[in-house]
């Protein structure tokens, strides 16, 4: 074996976009392969769990883990990778703060399963089959029974750092190739940042690098909130000043304001800045302060807030699972998942 640093790459509750960002390194990918050995990468390579188990503890230099922790399987795998790795990196918004799958924490697991398997208009499930931990399938032709097992879901989705110790975070949904490249260089240089640091991104808010920042007034004040599906943004004018809920001021920079270049407001995938403990709390603070009405105009204030139907989905789009209130109060242990079903 060579002396190159070993890298493991694992996915949990993830959409595959993070892997895509790896491929998007394009020619730079060749340099990555020159510099490191990939020892585990279920998305592209045929290494199994046993192969990781056989490695000595601490022998993997860096484990990159994307996706939130939704299943017992994820929990077991990340604990195994933590044991085998020197550095664990939460890669992407889901791993760092729960991401979009974390919004399922607004529902009990039972409600989520019922919605997914019974209620969604596109589903046809007359026998009301729901996932089961174990299914015993009778195969009369072969006169045998086969057992199939599914990993059990956790009652809520958890960000990686609520399950294992995380050394660094690479933000984004997904991280842009440049952010990933910056982070890789910082890590490969051996000049490691302090533990818990967010690598590859900026330390300032997105507005700082946004091309529309010049058009942002010194004091943003708006009379109404707009949504990009209902109103068309004027080009070349700060989206916040127009009343769009752009998360730029409370979001970490580093993406070079890509969405805003496409005339879409920032949704906050680079997450919170240093010194902020709750992303949505800070966003409420910001959006509350720019609405230009006094408490006497109570009706106008209510009207403006009511015009946005899903505030939690807006202000916690990527960070609900790591928020101070990380799931709906009263989340119960699921009842709809049966232990064994025989068919």
């Amino acid at each position, binding site marked *: 074996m060579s002396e190159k640093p070993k890298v493991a790459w694992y996915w949990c509750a993830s959409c595959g976009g993070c892997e895509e960002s790896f491929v998007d390194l394009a020619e730079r990918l060749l340099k990555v392969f020159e510099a490191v050995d990939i020892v585990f990468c279920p998305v592209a390579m045929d290494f199994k769990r046993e192969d990781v188990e056989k490695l000595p503890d601490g022998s993997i230099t860096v484990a990159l883990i994307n996706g939130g922790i939704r299943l017992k399987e994820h929990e077991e795998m990340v604990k195994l990778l933590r044991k085998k790795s020197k550095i664990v990196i939460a890669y992407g918004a889901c791993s760092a703060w729960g991401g979009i799958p974390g919004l399922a924490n*607004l529902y009990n697991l039972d409600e989520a399963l019922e919605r997914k398997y019974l209620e969604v208009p596109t589903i046809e499930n007359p026998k009301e089959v729901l996932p089961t931990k174990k299914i015993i399938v009778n195969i009369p032709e072969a006169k045998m029974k086969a057992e199939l097992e599914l990993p059990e879901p*956790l*009652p*809520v989705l958890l960000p990686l750092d609520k399950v294992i110790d995380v050394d660094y975070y690479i933000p984004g949904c997904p991280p842009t190739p440049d952010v990933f490249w910056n982070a890789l260089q910082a890590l490969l240089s051996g000049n490691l940042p302090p533990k818990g640091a967010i690598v590859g991104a900026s330390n300032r808010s997105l507005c700082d690098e946004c091309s529309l920042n010049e058009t942002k007034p010194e004091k943003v004040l708006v009379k109404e909130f707009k949504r990009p599906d209902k109103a068309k943004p004027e080009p070349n004018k700060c989206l916040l000043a127009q009343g769009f809920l752009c998360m730029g001021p409370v979001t970490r920079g580093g993406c070079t304001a890509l969405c805003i270049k496409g005339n879409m407001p920032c949704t906050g995938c680079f997450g919170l800045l240093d010194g*902020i*403990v*709750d992303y*949505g*709390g*800070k966003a*409420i*603070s910001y*959006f*509350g*302060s720019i*609405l230009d*009405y*006094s*408490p*006497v105009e109570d009706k106008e*204030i*209510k009207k403006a*807030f009511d015009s946005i139907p899903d*505030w*939690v989905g807006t*202000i916690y789009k990527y960070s609900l699972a790591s*928020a*101070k*209130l*990380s*799931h*709906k*109060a*009263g*989340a*119960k*242990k699921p009842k709809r998942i049966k232990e064994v079903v025989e068919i």
Partner: protein
Amino acid sequence: MSETKGEFEPKIVVYACNWCTYAATDLAGTSRMSYPPNVRIIRVMCSGRIDPQFVLQAFADGADGVIVAGCHPPADCHYIEGNYKAYRRFELFRKLLETMGIEQERFRLEWISAAEASRWVQVVNEMVTQVKKLGPLKPNLEVRE
């Protein structure tokens, strides 16, 4: 607060503005008014300084109820419009509480001037009774074994 004799004693965190509500709590003390000992008062310079993050932190750390209190609008605020900001922020904050399944009665935004010691005592009494009825808050219920 210890739960002696089985009765639930709620923890209530109060963020009080320096110029109005904190002065009212002082006045209540010097006037020898009595109110339940369930409140912990944190003095801040202005209700406009109270970031919703503080309230979220209080709930996450075990507060059963939170009161944010400042000067009466429209003209009492020492900083002219800090209370306006507080009002708008916490109007929005209530939507978050609703979605996250936390009872609205656990959070209260009040205007209490430096002269209104009796109002302060009334607010605390009402809040403690309300939260006692609701029982303890377990927002981050341990759902994992």
